[in-house]
């Protein structure tokens, strides 16, 4: 089957490790900092980004022979912004609680450099099915990192782990009281943006170490 030839597989799996959008390309950092305070937000954000990324890649790829080169960035931005507005409207109408929870972050998907980056670097040069796989791979690569970061931020910053349930979130884990009684304290810094930088730095370090990437001099 065409979908699973080695090249397509590579398109999906590369962004998960050797070419991860966050830890290797260092794209999409802004939103990775913002939505990683809680695990459930990171998970919902992952789905929203995967949807927008796949659809924008497919649309751009379909239009790639017609888009005038001089205005391609503007066209990409319009397509992405329209898709994001569409997601936002649908969430407000059918998943009101979830849309309330994500609030401004849905709108902020527009400014996620990964989406623009993939449109410009990949979708505009490849066919729709490959563009779709590229979107999927990068969306998963993005999700993987922000879920790891949010796991540590929520666990050590707020002392809980929350899963999305359409409402206020399902609390999966809570630091036991005896731990607090023994003098344990949540690390408030992790809830703030600098905390995200520290954890993200560690994740990027770990992943680059695993992949064996050397910065060029």
């Amino acid at each position: 089957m065409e979908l699973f030839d080695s090249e397509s597989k590579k398109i999906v799996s590369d962004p998960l490790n050797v070419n991860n959008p966050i830890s290797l390309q260092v794209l999409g950092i802004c939103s990775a900092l913002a939505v990683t305070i809680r695990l459930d937000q990171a998970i919902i954000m992952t789905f929203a980004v995967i949807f927008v990324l796949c659809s924008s890649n497919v649309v751009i790829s379909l239009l790639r022979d017609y888009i005038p080169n001089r205005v391609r960035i503007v066209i990409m931005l319009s397509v992405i912004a329209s898709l994001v507005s569409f997601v936002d409207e649908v969430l407000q109408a059918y998943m009101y609680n979830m849309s309330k929870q994500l609030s401004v972050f849905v709108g902020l998907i527009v400014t996620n450099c990964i989406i623009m980056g993939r449109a410009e670097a990949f979708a505009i040069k490849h066919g729709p099915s490959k563009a779709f796989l590229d979107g999927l791979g990068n969306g998963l690569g993005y999700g993987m990192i922000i879920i790891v970061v949010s796991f540590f931020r929520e666990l050590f910053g707020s002392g809980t782990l929350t899963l999305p349930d359409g409402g206020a979130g399902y609390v999966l884990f809570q630091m036991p009281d005896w731990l607090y009684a023994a003098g344990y304290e949540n690390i408030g810094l992790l809830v703030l943006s600098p905390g995200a930088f520290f954890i993200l730095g560690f994740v990027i370090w770990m992943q680059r170490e695993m992949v064996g990437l050397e910065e060029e001099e």
Partner: protein
Amino acid sequence: MHSNRYTLIFVFIVTIVLGTILSFTKENLRESQENNLKADVNKTILRSLGFSEKQGSSWSNEDVEKIFSSNVVGLCVDPQGNIIDNIVLEEIDIEKNIEQLPVYLRVVDGEFQGIALPVAGKGLWSTVFGYIALEPDLNTVLGIQFYKHGETPGLGGEVEKKWFTNNFVGKKIRNDNDEIIGVEVLKGKVDNSKKDSIHQVDGISGATVTSKGVTIFLKDDLKRYEAYLNKVKDNGII
């Protein structure tokens, strides 16, 4: 390289197509969005008045409407505490309109069980909207709920979370002289050994400005209702 003419026409078409799709989407979804919004406000009022969903289930918009219409009476008062008739409560601008003040009474089988008042004010980035409900003694907080804000999720956005709102329950809004002083959101934790702790709740770490904002608008908004609250206290609900 495409010609200028082609470029212009292409951009024009893309704009029209995307614009049409979006406005079509919006137009089709408007009704259910507005229903969601209205149900959300009513749900907030119900929750502040102590109604809660059964464990593991959540209210549909119809459930909210049903519970609301059979247990809650809405009316409008002026700052002197007189009731104003013939006003559509939903249309009152809670943040700016200080002449028309909506009030929601929890009346079950003729018995007055609580009163919910809208509160709104500036947090850090946005106006925070919510409802505070008082018990029939018009001093003890029955519940508080926030339903709309643009504060940073995880920081100021925590105002809508249970751990924060639960802390208000049972707190007193009046001091020993019966003056309304509201409930103060502290920076840090409440020291329960202090006498003032009955008027204080734990703050949100990392959200000092939002916490301060809540303290200020709770006091200001409750004071607006002072005349009406005192009337109800003396004469009961009319």
